[in-house]
């Protein structure tokens, strides 16, 4: 138990961040909630429309549902890089000793490069006319049939705008997972190896169960970040061509600042907030069932 004096000190230190959080996070969310019940172009008087915006969003806006579906693909691609690839790399990293620091730094590098630079770089990497890196590589190995303008082709654009986001933070999550992996007690692994376990079994039956809590926390971070992904898709294609790479975030942005329909844009933002809450709840649910099982 803390003494009264200490408790006061804790409260004093906690209040400012809490106030800031209420002002900068909870406040705007509540305001959006209010704004989503109005029709407003920013200049004319606000007109109360009740749940009309929600009705329009859920029942008569085909772009909304398309964008929601795209969001799930975007999430899947990002998570593939940020969880699966990152975990694989982190695991491999534990087997090398020379140059490990260099590898870590190189993989972490994209996380600190500015988003605009990443977008410009990928625009060139995906380009066909003039020939970009991916298409040049495909041509060099004789896979000319696969060459295409990845950001203009309706079948490839969504994955193409999702991959940079995943690639960008894969190194960061790799580091977190690597830190968890080196904390796995060596005795457990050695005992398993003495009993003749393969490296794969060491990974699936000892290492992964051991780092599971860290992995799930990483999953929450990666999932919430990806659900709100905006910058790279916005800079690369702005949701195009057509709506082929439209995400809820880019759609919301355009509704607000291009169409100046702030009420409906707020409705969309309320949905994004709900989506994030649901995703976190789902992952926490998985964590709880895992804990109960063990």
């Amino acid at each position, binding site marked *: 138990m803390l003494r009264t004096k200490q408790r006061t000190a804790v409260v004093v230190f906690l209040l400012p961040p809490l106030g800031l959080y209420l002002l*900068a*996070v909870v*406040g*705007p*969310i509540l*305001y*959006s909630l*209010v*704004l989503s019940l109005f029709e*407003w*172009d*920013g*200049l*004319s*008087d*606000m007109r109360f429309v009740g749940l009309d915006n929600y009705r329009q969003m859920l029942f008569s806006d085909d772009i909304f549902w398309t964008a929601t579906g795209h969001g799930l693909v975007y999430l899947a691609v990002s998570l593939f890089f940020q969880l699966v690839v990152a975990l694989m790399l982190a695991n491999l990293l534990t087997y090398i000793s020379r140059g490990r620091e260099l590898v870590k730094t190189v993989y972490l590098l994209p996380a600190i490069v500015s988003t605009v630079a990443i977008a410009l770089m990928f*625009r060139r990497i*995906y*380009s*066909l*006319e*003039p020939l970009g890196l991916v298409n040049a590589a495909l041509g060099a190995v004789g896979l000319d049939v696969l060459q*295409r*303008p*990845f*950001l*203009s*082709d*309706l079948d490839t654009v969504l994955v193409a705008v999702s991959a940079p986001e995943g690639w960008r933070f894969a190194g960061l999550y790799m580091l977190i997972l690597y830190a968890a992996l080196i904390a796995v007690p060596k005795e457990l692994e050695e005992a398993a190896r003495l009993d003749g376990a393969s490296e794969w079994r060491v990974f699936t039956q000892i290492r992964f169960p051991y780092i599971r809590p860290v992995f799930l926390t990483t999953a929450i971070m990666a999932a*919430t970040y990806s659900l*709100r992904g*905006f*910058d790279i898709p916005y800079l*690369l*294609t*702005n*949701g*195009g*061509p*057509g*709506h082929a790479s439209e995400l809820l*975030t880019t759609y*919301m*942005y*355009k509704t*607000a*600042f*291009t*169409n*100046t*329909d*702030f009420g409906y*844009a*707020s409705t969309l*933002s309320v949905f*994004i*907030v709900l989506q*994030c809450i649901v995703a976190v709840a789902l992952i926490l649910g998985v964590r709880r069932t895992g804990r109960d099982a063990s």
Partner: protein
Amino acid sequence: MKHTRWALAAAMALALSACNGAGAGGETDPSKVTGEIEPREVSWLLSRPADGAVIATIEEIAADYAEEHPGFSLNLITTPDRPSYLQKFETLATANKLPDFFDTDATPFADKLRQRGDMVDVEALLESLDMLDDYRPLALDYQRFDDGGLFMLPFEFEAEFFWYNTKLFEKAGVEVPATLDDLVDVCGPLRDAGVVPIALDGQDQWPLERYLSYYPFRLAGPDYVKELKKGEASITEEPGRAAAEWIYELGQAGCFPEGFSSTGYTDARDLFTTGKAAIYQIGTWELPTLAGPLPPETEGAVDYFTLPTVDGAVTDDNDYTVVSGIGTALSSRTFDPLVKDFVTYVLQEYPERYAAQGRFSPTTNVETTKPEGASPLYDKVVAELDNLGDETAMPWDTQLDPTSNTRLQQELTLLAQGEITAEEFLTIVDETIKENAE
């Protein structure tokens, strides 16, 4: 949570500002503003290149003005990236926090601001200063709202041409297209010669939208788009249909680069200046680049042709897209004797100083100085600008309501890529315009 939070914060700012209410604007009649000049800091929110000639000229003029008026300073806040600029501009407008000067096109949003009484009547101002006749009519027309109201000042004057590479045309054995349909026909031979026919900045979407405006402008004149945006004309009628079919044909003929939808402004320009593309549609604001030193592939090979015509055209060959750039409005809320005096000084000084930098003034009272080392192309363009007709093909993106415009731009890319047919394009756009027309 960065972006959501940011967007939500913006939403909150907007909500807060709503509580202030729309409120009445200030004094829109400049003649009623009189009194003593009290120097202070004046702000100008603008969307022009930071190293461009307009800003350089304005800064120079402001420095001179400040010498005579101690305490005066001009704070230029520039956001050249247009979408970011519009976001800033709209947020400030909704919060009633627009600065003394702000840049805007004659868009429906700007029209709402004017109707709210937020802008000073620029026509009245120019008239009171006896300067109205100095301006090129086309430069002023570009800034006018539909009812003829003039509330934005032009600071540029540029015509849009089709620049082409004579060496590549020769190599492919093609002639300068006389009609819009001829433009489609030159693409095949150019492709066969291993050249990208037309460089296109698809990322920004307005360049492709220009192409859509050409057929209607030739077939039905400048009023078509004005009727279209009000729902008085339909895009499914002949002018619109011809335009959509033409865009589809351009796409099918391989006129645009593969993957043009993600090509940016400078990438498209580089495609042309490095001799990889044969044609490039852009305004004379790129003249310093195109008439200046170029790579060996394009050195001495750049020429231009103006908007080709069509059979049964109602507009003349010398009528095409002529723009006077984004305009500058004066906020009526802060329009005081100082701002009035300063803007008068700017208007007096600007044309000559701007023209001295080799740029085209929106007025006719000065002559443009040819920059040192500029190619003969420069003189040709100067002569062309003195020979303009009196109609201009207004860019559609400044005309249509924003929702229809966004949808149209998105579908237009798909049309040029051949993902949808002209019929599908027309149906979608027609429905969207009907829903959103004023």
